């Protein structure tokens, strides 16, 4: 697990500028400096109950995600000015803020999409190529869920667990990422679960294993299928 808790800063801004083309399918995700916006949810705050309470969803989206968006915009505008002035000192000190808040924006945008109310297909098992890849790689969907839940439970501090696809081999893997480090490098994100305490605390408090178990009832495998190639 430790080796996947990547803490190395990545040049996210460059990734971010390219990301407008790369992730154009995700219309809401803009990483143009100063122009990131909070994406709308495609379901009501209360629609994921009882797995995730309406109160959690509202705070998580309107407050936490919005703060990442605001702070990313702020830092990326400063970064632009620093680049213009060739102010390397400022660029270096802004980099962790870009990574953290830009990462928070990316992660949450992907997360909202990979959740859905049960009335809109949430919890329905994947089909097609992704279902086959999961069976081939993990034996069964349940076994993948178990692997993800073990990874989630093992996160020391704040972070995420992601089902990712290796861009070179096409193979699936389960990775964890500390804080708001986004999936990158050789991997692309297929399905993410937020393991920050704010994602579950109002409802589950210290019983995080119950949250990890319940969230599978509202996983939108259709969104995951679209990300899988």
């Amino acid at each position, binding site marked *: 697990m*430790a080796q996947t808790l990547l803490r190395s800063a990545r040049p996210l801004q460059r990734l971010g500028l390219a990301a407008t083309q790369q992730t154009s399918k995700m219309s809401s995700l803009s990483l143009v400096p100063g122009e990131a916006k909070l994406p709308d949810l495609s379901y009501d705050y209360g629609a994921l109950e009882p797995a995730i309470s309406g109160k959690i969803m509202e*705070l998580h989206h309107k*407050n*936490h995600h919005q*703060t990442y968006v605001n702070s990313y915009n702020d830092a990326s505008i400063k970064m632009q000015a620093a680049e213009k002035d060739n102010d390397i000192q400022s660029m270096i000190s802004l980099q*962790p803020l870009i990574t*953290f808040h830009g990462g928070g924006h990316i992660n949450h945008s992907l997360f909202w999409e990979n959740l859905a109310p049960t009335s809109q297909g949430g919890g329905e098992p994947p089909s097609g190529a992704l279902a086959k890849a999961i069976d081939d790689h993990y034996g069964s969907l349940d076994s993948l869920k178990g692997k993800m839940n073990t990874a989630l439970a093992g996160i*020391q*501090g*704040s*972070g995420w667990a992601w089902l990712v696809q290796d861009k070179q081999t096409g193979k699936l893997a389960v990775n964890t990422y*500390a*804080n*708001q480090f986004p999936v990158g490098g050789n991997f692309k994100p297929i399905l993410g679960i937020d393991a*920050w*305490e*704010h994602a579950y*605390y*109002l409802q589950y*408090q*210290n019983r995080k294993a119950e949250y990890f178990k319940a969230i599978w009832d509202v996983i939108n495998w259709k969104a995951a299928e679209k990300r899988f190639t």
Partner: protein
Amino acid sequence: MDSRTSVLSAIIAALLSFIVFERFVLDPSPSTQQPQSIPSDILDMSVANYSLPPLPYAYDALEPAISAQIMTLHHTKHHQTYITNLNAALTNLQTAISGADIATQVSLQPVIRFNAGGHINHSLFWQNLAPASSSEAKFTSAPKLSKAIEATWGSEKEFKDAFNKALLGIQGSGWGWLVKVSGEGKEEKLRIVTTKDQDPVVGAGEVPVLGVDMWEHAYYLQYQNGKAAYVENIWKVINWKTTEERFLGGRNDAFKVLKASM
């Protein structure tokens, strides 16, 4: 962080060697056979077993700054879980040592670091909090420390502003600390330090004087995403008497509650 990593490694190495030492040197009936032959019940007896230190005040004593619900969950659930996992890891470590299973010994290190850190940090945290109405919660209860703080930061307010800024700058889970550092030239200095996750302040020459838990579980039920308000209110319930004692003492004094919980 790198120096912390190496310090932690050194501590774990010391811990490993201590357990080996205890096992093979202090054992009243040393076995000449392979360590695998030691019965597990004998092994269990010499494994460190930590228990939850009681709070020095009631769960609702810090209200309204910190709610009774937060304090109860934080102490009886979160802190207890670090202790439970630490004890389990130490037991597994001893089994791995006696079985000469080096791979398991190495893989247990991050688990020990995390859960021992959680136990250390929370034990220090409870002691450096006090009800707002108590005399301990007054800055004047730390006459020598307050002088040093004023000498370092200019004023109590400037120190708190700097500390708050550090707390709010933590990305993810972690802690903010006021640390007394003694080292080169024996001159003691105060520093504001943040640590990630449950990394403890255990570096050579470092004495943790004051710690503030910035994990979301420390404030979320009451403050939700308003962590600036938590950071503002925590100053009302700081036990300055404890911080003064830690400032005047050495590391062993700061960790005395921890030792008592063994």
